[in-house]
């Protein structure tokens, strides 16, 4: 994956002003945006998905421009072809598990095509949700909710997966299991991903590249080449940046 992003967004809330200056480029397939809460990593993810419009800048995936303020391009979310896993999963409470997973394949008027219906069934089986197809999200456990959300995001065949703190809603033992499951799924679907997290373990188990955020700015970018080096200075640099990122919190 070739991904480049360079955006500025000023926000005002509760009398405080916050400026996001996000800028990085990578060719790695697994990118982690790392930093404390309120450092701008989730805002960056939302900007990539088109859920937040930057003031200026440019976002491009594999040469496709998603947003470019100078060229006047701002692709709407629905046409960006990105899967998004929300922190609390945002499963539609009025739809069953099956309907949730089929949501992106269902036309506004009409029914899911037979081919798409088969794809939904296959996804449910793959995620071990086959027996829960008719259940509403309220009846699911935390892990089942996450699997449903992931199946729903993958159903539309996105070119990239965006994950916003995917494990924060789970308790610790489950978190470890779901982390393994997610790694397997990403391996199986060979899908590039960008994950937001403030958990160092998650960062280390998923990242090929890491972007470190602090108070709305990128303070470090480490690619797979850097990370692969046994060089202690790189590790130290990352740890120093993390420590710095958590300063004054």
């Amino acid at each position: 994956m070739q991904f480049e992003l360079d955006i500025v967004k000023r926000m005002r809330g509760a009398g405080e002003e916050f400026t996001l200056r996000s800028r990085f480029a990578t060719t790695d397939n697994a990118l982690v945006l790392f930093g404390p809460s309120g450092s701008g990593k989730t805002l960056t993810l939302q900007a990539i998905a088109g859920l937040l419009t930057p003031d200026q800048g440019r976002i491009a995936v594999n040469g496709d421009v998603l947003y470019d303020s100078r060229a006047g391009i701002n692709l709407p979310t629905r046409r960006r072809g990105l899967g998004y896993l929300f922190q609390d999963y945002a499963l539609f409470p009025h739809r069953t598990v099956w309907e949730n997973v089929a949501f992106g394949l269902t036309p506004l008027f009409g029914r899911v095509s037979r081919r798409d219906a088969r794809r939904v069934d296959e996804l449910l089986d793959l995620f071990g949700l086959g027996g829960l197809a008719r259940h509403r999200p309220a009846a699911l456990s935390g892990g089942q909710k996450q699997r449903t959300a992931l199946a729903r995001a993958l159903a539309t065949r996105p070119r990239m997966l965006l994950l916003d703190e995917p494990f924060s809603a789970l308790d610790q033992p489950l978190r470890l299991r779901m982390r393994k499951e997610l790694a397997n799924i990403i391996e199986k679907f060979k899908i590039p991903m960008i994950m937001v997290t403030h958990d160092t373990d998650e960062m280390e188990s998923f990242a090929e590249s890491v972007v470190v955020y602090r108070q709305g700015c990128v303070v470090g970018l480490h690619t797979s080449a850097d990370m692969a080096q046994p060089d202690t200075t790189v590790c130290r640099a990352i740890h120093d940046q993390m420590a710095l990122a958590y300063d004054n919190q």
Partner: protein
Amino acid sequence: MDIMHHLLTAQFMEPLLLTLKVAGLATLAATILGIAMAYVLARWRFPGRDVVDAVCTLPMVMPPTVLGYYLLVLIGRRGFLGVWLKDVFGISLVFTWQGAAIAATVVAFPLVFKSARAALEGVGRQFEDAARTLGQGELAVFLRVSLPLALRGVMAGTMLAFARALGEFGATLMVAGNLPGRTQTLSLAVYSAVQAGDDGLANALVIVISLVCVAILVGTSRLLQSQY
């Protein structure tokens, strides 16, 4: 029974059927307009938003006769919309049941608008965003996610609006008058029956209206009980 005796007479059935027609149409119109305005105010930020909200809520707090007066100024024989309607379509709304329906719509509108706005604002942003990331356009997001999740609140507002339209008196009297068989709705018929000393008819009308209103309130509170 004295009341049963009145139930199938023209004096009772005419206002009843007219009221159902007027209130039904008014509720439909108020529901569509109320949801549309609620959506605009719940989703978009623009200058003057508070003022628009206040104007939309105004019919709830203003005396119905004042509303009726405004409506006359607007759609009356000399009102600017009234003159236009007369010139272009040859329609006059004053002293017609359609005029009564417009009066009832205005009075019922804020009840749908208020409930729908609260309900739509209560729909988590993340559900709508999730639908967008799944390739849905704004119309699909509204019809498949926002509206279904807000439906109970919207329906509760619709039922209250129906009850309000059913009992409309002041604005209807101003715009449509009190013509038996043409614009005399239930609440106007109660007034006329009492004026004429026909207590039996008044009793029958009052009991029917009361029962309908109680049924609507019970239904509304059931609807508003939590879901999911």
